[in-house]
């Protein structure tokens, strides 16, 4: 489907919801809705064929005081199989909370768990928010922009006595 047709198609599905449409290269559609509309939009996308959740991505934008959360969905059905749609919303950075969509796309549970760990976005209703990759992590979530990677590297080096002499 071309960019114009998929935009028309999605607009038809999300009729009545407040949505902003933008583009992710190459010609993928990104739909930004309000946080409270996420569940409704997701339900409509699922029932019109977007049955395969590809991923959940959260991105920190400290300058705008928001964290953007995108659900990337595709479809294994014939007609929509070449499409990828981004269902996006923004949550405030100091209290990032969002309702889980794992009831709609069961695959979302694991992806939400990762984004919770990496960016601290709390997905209300997801009962599986346990540490996934990081064990005993006490710092701020590492993929936030104010997390300084260099400091961690230096601390770890020192902890292991690994100040390697450079020529």
């Amino acid at each position, binding site marked *: 489907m071309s960019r114009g047709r998929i935009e028309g198609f999605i607009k038809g599905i999300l009729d009545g919801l407040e949505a902003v449409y933008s583009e*992710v*290269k*190459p010609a*993928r559609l*990104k739909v930004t809705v309000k946080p409270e509309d996420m569940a409704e939009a997701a339900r409509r996308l699922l029932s019109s064929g977007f*049955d*395969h*959740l*590809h*991923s959940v*991505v959260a*991105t*920190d934008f400290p300058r705008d005081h928001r964290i953007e959360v*995108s659900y*990337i969905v595709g479809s*294994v059905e014939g007609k929509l*199989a*070449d499409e*990828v749609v*981004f269902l996006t919303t923004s949550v405030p950075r100091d209290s990032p909370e969002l309702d889980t969509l794992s009831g709609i*796309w*069961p*695959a979302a*549970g*694991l992806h939400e768990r*990762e984004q919770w760990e*990496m960016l601290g976005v709390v997905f209300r209703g997801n009962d599986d928010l346990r*540490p*996934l*990759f*990081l*064990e005993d992590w006490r710092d701020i979530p*590492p*993929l936030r922009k104010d*997390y300084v*990677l260099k400091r961690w590297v230096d601390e770890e080096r020192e902890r292991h006595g690994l100040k390697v002499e450079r020529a």
Partner: protein
Amino acid sequence: MSYYQLVPGVYVEELPEKEGKITVSIGPQHPGSGHFRLIITIDGDVVVDADPDPGYVHRGEEKMCETRDYIQNIPHLERPVVLDSAGIQFPYILAAEEILDIKDKVPEKAKYLRILLAEFNRVISHFYFLAIQAIFLGHSTVLEWSMADREVLMDLAAMLTGARVTFAYFVPGGVRSDVPSGFVDQTLKAVGYLRSRMKEYWRMLVDNPFMKMRMEGVGVLKAKDAIELGAVGPNLRASGVEYDIRKVDPYSLYDTVEFHVPTYKEGDTMSRIKIRLDEINESLGIIEQVVRKLDGMRGPVRHLVKGAALRAKPGEAYARTEAARGMMSFYIISDGGRTPYRVKVDTPSFRNMKLIPVLLKDVRVADVPIVFWSIDYWPVEADR
């Protein structure tokens, strides 16, 4: 998490107890791949619950991407997926080219060379899968065969790229080196040789009555579950869903080569093996076609991007490809700087992790290794 002290300084994690059942921690030392732990609860010798515990080989690739430019990101991104390093490079390069706005400048020859290396890697990775699956089945003949036959293509890849495993061959704008002399002939010979070998693999693993008894009907994944849980790649297709990105959303020049997407209905461990054997055959077909096209093709292989042009415009790009283990995708956000603002890597193994609890339920303890490995879960790739 609670711990008790074994000897001074050594702590052991206490697993939650469930009444009447035994909780077993398998790993984190893993005999076939990177480190990974599986916590299973068993009743008698039947698994009632399985909980994957990844993270032992987490490297923070996404954070690392934010501090390096689009070329410097190439080598470290290959490390999590060494068996399929072209598989992870492909979507990264496609997304990076989108965001650097040089997509139209990539020469045709480079596109074919990319397909060639990606298919090499698919075969290499599937052979590794067969080797480890065979040793988990106690079938050490196939372990040795597939480890040896892998070498044939790895040598060819080394001839083309200069490295055996981590190729660093794809760059924004094309590929790094041209076809060396004698490469086309040797590749065609290798395809013929491997084709003749595939029949024997089929005999050893699929028609073999002992393998049938071990694997048929064990660890069944239904198509509906597979879609809902977000399974990708051969595991999804072994359950009867024909979903291959190369076919449904062709990238590079995959729409100019002919191949067919094998699927199986059963969704059991055996069909996950059969599908990989079939895919090796299909990949060999693609390699043959591509190599014939490359023979005598002239022209550049790379559009050279000068340092200053490596600065991307603000924007977002997304690319997905079919790597050996399934759909691999990159989502890159740029704010106009020299380095990406945010990179999200989605690996097939991470997506397939969701399948482990479902597949292992009601499986006997003795079958846990073969069912677990049959989804080709690669811990390093999942952790990133």
